[in-house]
């Protein structure tokens, strides 16, 4: 068979991808993002004494703070990535996913997981004093929390954990099958995706069962550290970078700069990232040699990260001006700059010297926002800005609103990051100088007020995006399908 006939017999991407489902995933993701942001705003209001709902149990700031983090991780980022996988994997493998029905099932099952997590966290604590809960808890020696469980990002109530884990196994099966069936060498993106499916499943299983059921104390602390770190490093990061390796060459219409550096980036991440979790609990009773190991592997991974960023700088080299007009590309490269900043910051803050001062402060909160919003959410917004015109068969209704979304988000998160980092330094010095505790709370107020407005900037950027999406959806369908979008992605 000649190359020409082989190309002719290959299916078209349009026949491989279930575009409706991609759209659903993105809409679900954006809905959860709104809920998460409102939760964050509520907590920000609480800290500056402006919370108007202090007496309403179901709007308790403490519970909504957990909605904030969980809705971002499992609602927004997971849903957006699943939509992205539904689009990307068939295109890269020229294979359909394992089963279309399974894709639909995963979609609905995941909505059940996310919504019942939220319901559990909000309503669970109110039912905790029922007699049967206490009796069951005592007889099984299990902490039967109807609401949140006591592990960051592992708050998912215990009665949802098995369902979520089964869902992750199905996700792996659904999207790894086309990868397994594909012939020829695997593209970089697929390395990251494949590893991410394995890692996400293992990470979730480790973090949501071991510290709750079998381990306690210091050992549970070690596993908790691995879990909260791996959730970012082995679920969000590989899917995010896999997405970058897929989309950036398409937008720039040229291959990734160096295949060798891609290999270094992937294998370096795979080896060093899982080893770092304990750096979240430095100076705890966890054995000191394990803490040193975590610190060293964290600093090592920052070198690896530098190679990945260099690779992408090399790719855009000579075409840098494209980010002026190409909004998706601008989202991606801004995210990469923020990624480099977080990683550089990470190599410093992971040392015992920095930890002495900034552990337990807002510094860490600023870092978390820069990673989860400044990097991964920005990449997701870039992907959505690129894909929605293709999914809807319409151009964006307003380029200006796309710009507003970008600038409000980028400035908002950067201000929040600077503000909270500085707040962390202040708080650290208030504490170590043994001033009364209230001094640290009082001294944080200007920073917390600034943070609220930075958060509102981000939220208004989001509102621009939603408004734009609404008007785009309502506009008449373009005559020709926008295979390329001249306004946002000039050739």
């Amino acid at each position, binding site marked *: 068979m000649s190359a020409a006939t082989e190309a002719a017999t290959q299916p078209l991407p349009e026949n491989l991808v279930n575009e409706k489902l991609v759209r659903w995933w993105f809409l679900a993701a954006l809905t959860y993002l709104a809920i998460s942001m409102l939760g964050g705003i509520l907590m920000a209001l609480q800290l500056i004494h402006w919370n108007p709902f202090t007496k309403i149990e179901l709007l308790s700031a403490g519970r909504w703070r957990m909605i904030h983090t969980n809705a971002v991780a499992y609602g927004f980022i997971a849903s957006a990535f699943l939509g992205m996988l539904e689009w990307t994997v068939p295109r890269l493998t020229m294979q359909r996913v394992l089963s279309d029905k399974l894709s639909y099932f995963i979609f609905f099952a995941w909505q059940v997981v996310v919504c019942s997590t939220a319901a559990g966290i909000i309503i669970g604590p109110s039912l905790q004093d029922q007699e049967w809960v206490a009796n069951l808890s005592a007889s099984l020696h299990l902490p039967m*929390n109807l609401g949140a469980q006591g592990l960051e990002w592992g708050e998912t109530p215990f009665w949802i954990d098995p369902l979520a884990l089964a869902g992750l196994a199905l996700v792996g099966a659904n999207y790894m099958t086309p990868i397994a069936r594909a012939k020829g060498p695997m593209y970089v993106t697929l*390395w990251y995706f494949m590893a991410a499916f394995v890692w996400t499943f293992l990470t979730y299983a480790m973090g949501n069962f071991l510290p709750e*059921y079998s381990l306690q104390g210091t050992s549970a602390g070690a596993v908790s550290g691995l879990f909260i770190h791996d959730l970012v490093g082995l679920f969000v990061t590989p899917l995010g970078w896999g997405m970058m390796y897929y989309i950036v060459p398409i937008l720039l219409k040229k291959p990734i700069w160096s295949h060798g550096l891609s290999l270094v980036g992937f294998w370096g991440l795979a080896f060093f990232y899982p080893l770092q979790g304990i750096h979240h609990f430095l100076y705890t009773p966890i054995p000191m040699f394990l803490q040193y190991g975590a610190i060293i592997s964290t600093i090592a991974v920052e070198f690896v990260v530098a190679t990945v960023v260099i690779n992408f700088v090399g790719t855009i080299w000579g075409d840098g001006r494209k980010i002026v007009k190409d909004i998706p590309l601008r989202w991606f490269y801004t995210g990469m700059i923020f990624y480099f900043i977080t990683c550089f910051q990470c190599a410093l803050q992971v040392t015992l010297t920095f930890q002495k001062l900034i552990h337990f*402060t807002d510094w860490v909160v600023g870092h978390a926002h820069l990673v989860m919003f400044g990097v991964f959410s920005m990449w997701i917004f870039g992907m959505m800005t690129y894909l929605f015109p293709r999914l809807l068969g319409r151009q964006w209704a307003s380029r200006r609103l796309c710009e507003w979304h970008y600038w409000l988000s980028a400035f908002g998160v950067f201000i929040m990051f600077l503000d909270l980092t500085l707040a962390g330094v202040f708080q650290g010095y208030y504490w170590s100088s043994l001033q009364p505790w209230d001094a640290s709370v009082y001294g944080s107020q200007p920073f917390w007020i600034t943070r609220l407005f930075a958060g509102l900037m981000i939220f208004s950027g989001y509102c621009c995006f939603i408004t734009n999406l609404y008007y785009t959806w309502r506009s008449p369908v373009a005559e020709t399908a926008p295979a390329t979008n001249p306004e946002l992605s000039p050739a």
Partner: protein
Amino acid sequence: MFESKAGIFFIAGVGFFAFAFLSNAAVPVAMYRDQPEKTVEELVNPRILYQFKELSRRFPEAFEDHVGEASEENCVKALRLGRQVYVGEGCWHCHSQFVRPVSNDSRRFGAVSETWEYQNELQRPVMFGTRRVGPDLTREGGRRGSDWHAVHFFRPKIVSTDSPMPEYPWLFDGAPDKPNKRGIALITYIQWLGSWHDTYPYYEELTEMQLNE
């Protein structure tokens, strides 16, 4: 190997994860296997029992309605429920339970935390914490009276003017002197914190007789 499906699945995916798990999680488990987990029944000590009885005297009607007798058995139940309230309400997102050996922590909060303090059912998962908006609570028990805690949970600003802590009126039947089942449990849990330690302070003078009462 570096670009093959099997290499990525088994070496990067499963292999490196397993290596990290063995070296970072299995090692501390093995190191502390001689310190088995204590159940809540084993954790009840004279200090927390004193606080529990004291709660029954301070809020007699509420205590009678929601707990009954100030027995050891009921104290166990209150501790379990109290921790669940502590977790469910998200207290642990703003209060750590870990006195660090640095940053003058030990001068502010008391003795530096050690492994044995965490080897029990009420530290599953462990409550080290990740953020301190409010102070560390590892040694909070006994520092303040239970009526202070009741008022503080009801409306923190009454006793701590600038406190940004949320109010928890749903832990009460309408007034700070009427804690409900969850409220009593949470106060018991807070008073338990640090009760295993010789540095446990007493807010009010205690005698040997009261402890053995």
